Every structure is written in structure tokens, then in C-alpha cells.
């Protein structure tokens, strides 16, 4: 699959995503510059973590208005896959490709640690290699990952099944102590109604190889690049 990793001024997880797609999963990968007006034929676009535009105004707010995002919007509207990680998630909410907003962490601290999340949906192109209800461990590193929306919008999100990942304790149990950023309803990852755009705060690209001591994030990348026809039958 041809994959594109968007590079904004201040992106700093772009090479990590490139590495996983290219060297771990043997995919064709290219970097897309924030001023590009085309996605150059990419079927999957990843908005990586970092501090795009220095987090000026709000995290992701200025990146959401960059030229490449018009192309990302067209891609998403056509059903193409878009993944946003950390700052990439912020960009997607600011661009209104995903609902809600990511505010300062409730405890006002930058949180850099491993968290556990329950995979709430495994029928998406991002999660089909996980088991229903599987608990995964991934690192977070952010100061603004506190997912918020109005109560009515959160209810709508739950009803529509758009909550894809939820912070939990190591055994999968709901536990506010493990919701480090204070997100409403412990939401760590959401998708759009169509299920082709996903944003999450944790970094799957930082835990996609055994040599790193954790490969829980690999299945997310495998899910995205696996041909749909093969997922129903035999695994690779």
C-alpha cells in the first residue's frame, strides 16, 4: 500500500511512523509536506505527533488550515484512510474531520508514560487485527490530550460507536486513576461516523517492534495495510 506521512513544521514523530510502515511492514511510504496540494496517490495518510506550528493558538489549529489538509479532507470524504496520532489527532479535531476537542490535561501536567486502553471496536480498518475488548499498552506523551465535548455530543458519539479506544486499568477495568489526561468518559481514540478516520492520543508507532519491549501498536498498522480480502480468512 502506498502510504503518506504528513510533515508539518514541528512534526517530530514523522520518521517513527515512516519506519514502522517502511521497514517493519515493507510498505511504500513517502513524506507529504504541509504545503503539498496533493496526496500523490497515497491510500493511507498519517498525521504524526509533534508540535505543528509550535502549538501556536491551540494544538493543531494552524496545521488544520495548511494546504495539505484540503487534500486530506478530500481523501477522507472519498472514504480514504486517515490516521492522526497525538498532535495529528488534535489536527483532525481542529479540522472538524473528527468531533470534540483536546484540552489541557486535567492535572496540568505533561504526561509521558505507558497507558492501557480497551479496544472498543475491531470492525474498523484500523483495529481489525485486535481482539474484541483486547487491552493494549501504549505510551502517551502529551500535555493536551483531555478529550472534551458537550454531554449531548458525547452521548451521540457513544451511540454511534465512534469511541474506538478507552483508557482503563491494566486488566481492562474502568479506573479514573489510569485516565491521566482526564478525558471525558476515558476516551483515548475516536473515529468519524464512516469509520475511515481515526485519531488517538497514544503512540502506536513507538510500540510496534519486539525490540522496543512492546509491540501492541503493530496490529494497528497491520490492520491498515492488510488487504481487506485477506482479513476475513487466513492471517499472514
Amino acid at each position, binding site marked *: 500500500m502506498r502510504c503518506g506521512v504528513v510533515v508539518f513544521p514541528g512534526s517530530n514523530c514523522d520518521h517513527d511512523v515512516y519506519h514502522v510502515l517502511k521497514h517493519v511492514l515493507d510498505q511504500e511510504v513517502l513524506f507529504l509536506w504541509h504545503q503539498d496540494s496533493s496526496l500523490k496517490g497515497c491510500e493511507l495518510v498519517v498525521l504524526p505527533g509533534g508540535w505543528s506550528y509550535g502549538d501556536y493558538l491551540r494544538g493543531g489549529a494552524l496545521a488544520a488550515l495548511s494546504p495539505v489538509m484540503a487534500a486530506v479532507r478530500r481523501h477522507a470524504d472519498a472514504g480514504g484512510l486517515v490516521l492522526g496520532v497525538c498532535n495529528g489527532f488534535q489536527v483532525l479535531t*481542529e479540522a472538524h474531520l473528527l468531533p470534540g*476537542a483536546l*484540552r*489541557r490535561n486535567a492535572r*496540568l501536567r505533561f504526561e509521558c508514560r505507558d497507558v492501557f486502553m480497551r479496544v472498543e471496536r475491531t470492525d474498523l480498518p484500523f483495529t481489525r487485527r485486535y481482539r474484541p475488548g483486547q487491552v493494549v499498552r501504549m505510551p502517551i506523551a502529551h500535555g493536551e490530550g483531555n478529550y472534551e465535548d*458537550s454531554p449531548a455530543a458525547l452521548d451521540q458519539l457513544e451511540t454511534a460507536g465512534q469511541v474506538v479506544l478507552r483508557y482503563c486499568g491494566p486488566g481492562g477495568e474502568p479506573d479514573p486513576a489510569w485516565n491521566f489526561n482526564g478525558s471525558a468518559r476515558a476516551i483515548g481514540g475516536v473515529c468519524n461516523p464512516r469509520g475511515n478516520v481515526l485519531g488517538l492520543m497514544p503512540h502506536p508507532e513507538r510500540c510496534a517492534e519486539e525490540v522496543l519491549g512492546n509491540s501492541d501498536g503493530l496490529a494497528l498498522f497491520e490492520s491498515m495495510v492488510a488487504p481487506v480480502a485477506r482479513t476475513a480468512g487466513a492471517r499472514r
Partner: protein
Amino acid sequence: MRARVNVYPRREILDPQGKAIRDALERVGFAAVREVRAGKSFEIDLGGDDPAVAGEILRQMCEKLLANTVVEEYGIEILEDRR
């Protein structure tokens, strides 16, 4: 024409920064403070001389960029020209 745009967290949303500042004010002797909301302020010189037109342009600026209306609200003040 000059204007000031103030952006604050919505009242119904917890403002952890404002709360931390309130708590700090209490520690330095201002125990009577009930609430602090921490926001942003923008001074904008946008030309023109019709306050109604300017107000509408500023409202669009807030909706499109200056505020994230999911979690923030905004207020617009047209300032007296100091020339």
C-alpha cells in the same frame, strides 16, 4: 478600526488552569476569589470604520480560527481609536 477579542473556556467545562490560578491567589492572600477563568486576548487592527461590519468580520474570525467553539466561547469589543 481596532478591536479586542477575548476567548475563554466555556463555563460548563472545567478550567483546570483557572482553578490552579484561583488556588494560587488564595495562597498569596486573596481568599475571597471565587472563580478565575484563564483565556486569551487578541488585539486586532482590521481597518475600515464601520463597527457593524467589523463586528461581523471578527465573529467569522472567531468561528473559523480564534476560538474552538467546542470548548471555548468568545467576546468581541470594538476599541476607541487612539489616533
